[in-house]
């Protein structure tokens, strides 16, 4: 077998390949030769072959068959072999291969080798790719080498220890004794690696941290020497002595000084010295200043020092070097929470960075700008941010739009400004806004009641211009559906009202339905909007026609909606006005990020609702009527009970429940239809649950027993509704002490006319026997006139096979519940 070709030969040959295929062919040929050479167990050329294999591996070709050969090389006595063998181990072997454990013994031997360069090789390999098992086995050897006086080995051992600690944190204790006099070394290599080791230990263990705090004076001294000492050629970088070591010491000081007054005080002087004396003309000086600033901001530094740090960052912002500006923006972002006012002073510079050409800088500037927005600067900042939104790259637009929405929500100076801002975002970056912004905006628009006419007019005008931006189109069609009557009647006060006819509005909405630009979701919005206009406009026939056409649409969602709307026209025309009424005000529980929108049923602001006139509704088997009869008289108002848990997911039931309350008289019973068409996105119903919906203050009102007969006991517990003190939330707990379950349990209640009452769904309709469980149900009572609360309750259930019915009056409400 001829001698395998040399490494350089191979590289030269492969580089002459003109195509990928040619290269592959050469490599395959050489791999085959190498494989047969390995099989022959040739000691002389193993090293050369493995080196060639490593080259081919770098080009991206598989080289796993060389793994065992690397191990053989490591075991060899020859230094050349070991060098390549360890390199191969670091490149080809990793802890995923079981084979790597075979290395352990070799490394152990080499750690004790007579030649320091062999020891160095094994330390390096262990420190780069040692697995947890290997680290456990060899930690003792590393610890021994950490105490050697040979600085070449000591520095490598220190970094090897760092790796061991990262892989097996429990072994940290073991290295503690060896760290005793690490910092008294003169050798910079050892000093540097020791500081890294100490940093790693302090980051991982609070005990170590407190133990090493005593080193602060020593570290300060070392740093001082570095700064004050004259030129030392060995470690000099552009006139600064060993910047790597300086930065590492500053980083360790940061960790040691954090949260500790004494340590922070001990380092105040040196930090001030570094901050003022470091040369800033070159990158290396700025690197040290950067680290110093980070340290000052993290420890308990005195205010003068903090101001100095922020000013340094301010100067960085004006630096010509892009990297330094970037780093300044990043640091300011970290400090904006704690030193808000100081950062605000640099606001104009930061806003200028929005116009920078560099992508990284623009992103940081945008994030920082959002952090700096507050009530005082909102108008100015928003102008800049909107301008940025216009001109920035598409990757930024989504984040920028969300940020603008959040900022506008928190600090909007007026409702009109808020709506204008939103419109601006929708028109400039409409296709990039996040999905949840559409429901958020709708909720916002609903709540700004006085702006409805203005909003719908502006949205209509925007639609006339451009229907390609889906979120804008969705919000606009929702508004037109809701407030179309205001649009047509030209009621806008804020702006010059436009003249638009019903037909024109319907033209626009129908245009959305047929346009290729509209997504299915948008189409659904516009169909529902058209439907809603049937109660607001007079041209009902046209609407009927549109709706019936879409009854045969290919899009299943549209088809279902159209069919149901059709049914609404035909069979349930009496319900149509009630169903398509104005949406009530929605309350938000949180203003950050996605909101959980809670339905309050318009109880809080009942004056704002347009209650439409309800036509007479026939009520097949309405239990509400029974209650009326029973309670005999006009002074009591029946309440719609919510659907029993057998149909908890019935959207229709819950919607009608809301309407029942709005009407204040007997409303329609829950229809058996599986889903009455929802004209709103599902978020409305997401908020509606059968549990109490608000975080209440602790119940100060004592509970009471409302009813106790035949084994059935009903207790009332009270809570105050947080947003509205006029609402009392009563939770009933029904327990059954008899021997048989009470099934089909239904609880009904009625209150005097001056009150309003809402019953939510009960937890179940079976009250288990022998007090094994309870049925709970929530009642909300609105008591605006603060009259004494009285209630009549009716209970029906089946007990031991026979139905039971009972009525009772509840008069013993504690005074706190209605005062």
């Amino acid at each position: 077998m001829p001698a395998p070709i040399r490494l350089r030969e191979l590289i030269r040959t492969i580089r002459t390949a003109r195509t990928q295929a040619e290269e592959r062919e050469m490599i395959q040929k050489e791999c085959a030769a190498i494989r047969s050479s390995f099989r022959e167990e040739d000691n002389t050329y193993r090293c050369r072959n493995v080196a060639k294999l490593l080259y081919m591996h770098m080009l991206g070709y598989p080289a796993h068959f060389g793994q065992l050969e690397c191990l053989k090389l490591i075991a060899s006595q020859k230094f050349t072999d070991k060098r390549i063998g360890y390199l191969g181990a670091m490149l080809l072997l990793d802890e995923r291969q079981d084979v790597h454990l075979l290395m352990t013994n070799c490394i152990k031997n080499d750690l004790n080798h007579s030649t320091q360069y062999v020891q160095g090789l094994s330390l390096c390999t262990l420190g780069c790719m040692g697995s947890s098992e290997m680290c456990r086995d060899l930690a003792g050897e590393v610890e021994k080498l950490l105490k050697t006086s040979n600085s070449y080995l000591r520095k490598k051992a220190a970094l090897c220890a760092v790796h061991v600690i990262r892989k097996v944190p429990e072994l940290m204790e073991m290295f503690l004794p060896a760290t005793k006099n690490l910092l008294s070394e003169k050798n910079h290599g050892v000093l540097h690696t020791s500081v890294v080791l100490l940093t790693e230990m302090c980051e991982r263990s609070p005990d170590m941290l407190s133990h090493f705090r005593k080193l602060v004076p020593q570290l300060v001294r070392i740093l001082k020497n570095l700064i004050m000492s004259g030129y030392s050629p060995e470690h000099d970088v552009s006139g600064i002595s060993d910047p790597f070591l300086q930065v590492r010491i500053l980083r360790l000081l940061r960790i040691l000084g954090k949260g500790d007054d004494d340590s922070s005080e001990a380092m105040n002087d040196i930090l001030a010295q570094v901050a003022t004396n470091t040369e800033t003309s070159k990158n290396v000086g700025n690197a040290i200043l950067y680290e110093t600033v980070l340290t000052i901001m993290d420890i308990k530094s005195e205010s003068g020092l903090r101001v100095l740090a922020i000013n340094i960052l301010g100067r960085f912002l004006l630096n010509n070097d892009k990297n330094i500006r970037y780093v300044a923006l990043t640091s300011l972002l970290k400090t904006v929470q704690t030193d808000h006012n100081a950062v605000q002073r640099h606001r104009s510079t930061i806003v200028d960075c929005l116009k920078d050409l560099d992508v990284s800088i623009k992103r940081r500037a945008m994030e920082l700008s959002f952090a700096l927005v507050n009530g005082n600067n909102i108008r100015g900042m928003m102008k800049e941010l909107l301008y940025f939104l216009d001109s920035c790259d598409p990757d930024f637009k989504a984040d920028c739009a969300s940020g603008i929405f959040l900022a506008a929500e928190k600090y909007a100076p007026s409702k009109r400004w808020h709506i204008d801002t939103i419109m601006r975002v929708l028109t400039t970056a409409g296709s990039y806004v996040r999905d949840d912004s559409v429901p958020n905006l709708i909720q916002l628009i609903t709540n700004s009641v006085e702006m409805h006419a203005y909003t719908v007019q502006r949205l209509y005008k925007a639609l006339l211009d451009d229907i390609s931006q889906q979120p804008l189109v969705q919000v606009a069609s929702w508004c037109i559906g809701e407030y179309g009557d205001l649009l047509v009647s030209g009621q806008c006060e804020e702006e010059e009202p436009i003249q638009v006819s019903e037909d024109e509005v319907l033209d626009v909405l129908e245009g959305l339905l047929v346009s290729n630009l509209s997504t299915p979701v948008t189409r659904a919005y516009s169909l529902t909007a058209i439907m809603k206009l049937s109660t607001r406009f007079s041209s009902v026939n046209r609407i009927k026609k549109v709706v019936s056409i879409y009854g045969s649409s290919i899009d299943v969602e549209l088809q279902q909606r159209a069919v149901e709307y059709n049914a609404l026209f035909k069979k349930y025309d009496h319900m149509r006005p009630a169903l398509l009424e104005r949406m009530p005000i929605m309350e938000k529980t949180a203003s950050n990020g996605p909101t959980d929108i809670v339905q309050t049923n318009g109880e809080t602001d009942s004056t704002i609702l347009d209650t439409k006139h309800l036509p007479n509704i026939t009520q097949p088997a309405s239990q509400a009527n029974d209650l009326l009869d029973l309670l005999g008289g006009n002074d009591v108002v029946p309440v719609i009970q919510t659907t029993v848990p057998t149909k908890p997911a019935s959207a229709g039931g819950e919607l009608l429940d809301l309407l029942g309350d709005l009407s204040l008289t007997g409303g329609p019973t829950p229809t058996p239809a599986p889903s009455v068409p929802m004209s709103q996105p599902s978020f409305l119903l997401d908020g509606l649950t059968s549990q109490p919906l608000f975080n209440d203050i602790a119940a100060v009102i004592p509970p009471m027993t409302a009813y106790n007969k035949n084994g059935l006991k009903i207790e009332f517990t009270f809570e105050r509704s947080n947003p509205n003190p006029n609402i009392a939330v009563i939770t009933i707990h029904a327990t059954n002490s008899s021997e048989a379950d009470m099934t089909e349990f239904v609880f009904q209640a009625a209150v005097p006319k001056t009150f309003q009452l809402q019953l939510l769904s009960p937890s179940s309709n079976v009250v288990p026997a022998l007090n094994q469980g309870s049925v709970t149900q929530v009642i909300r009572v609105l008591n605006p006139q603060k009259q004494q609360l009285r209630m009549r309750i009716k209970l029906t259930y089946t007990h031991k096979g026979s139905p039971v019915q009972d009525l009772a009056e509840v008069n013993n409400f504690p005074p706190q519940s209605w005062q």
Partner: protein
Amino acid sequence: MMRFLLLFSRQGKLRLQKWFTALSDRDKKKIIRDVTQMVLVRPPKSCNFLQWRDLKIVYRRYASLYFCCGLEQGDNELLTLELLHRYVELLDQYFGNVCELDIIFNFEKAYFILDEFIIGGEVQETSKASVAKSMEEADSLQETMEEYVNKPTY
């Protein structure tokens, strides 16, 4: 700590790869692909830092080679630029006016020099002279062909 160090040409050909964490081959290839693509599209005068996943990527172009590394959040980017520069200086000192071809044909030496400068993602020696001296002495330990053949392997 540094997570990885990559050297690649302007055409995207990898010249050196050093990984300081355990990753599968597939992951490594993906990272190389992603980072190389990201860095190669940057315009010439742009900032040398970018954010990628949870890492800071620092890169610098020296002639036809890109030196690129991935850092953790706590690391100092400006100092890393100095680090990359120091590595280039070490290569330059060793090879004498180093160019890409030197690194192609002597990649194993480039690795050896790197291993004398950085271990486990952290700098081990801040003195240029010290690294050069170590390389020299280690090289002298490498056997000549004659010695190599005559010395028993085990």
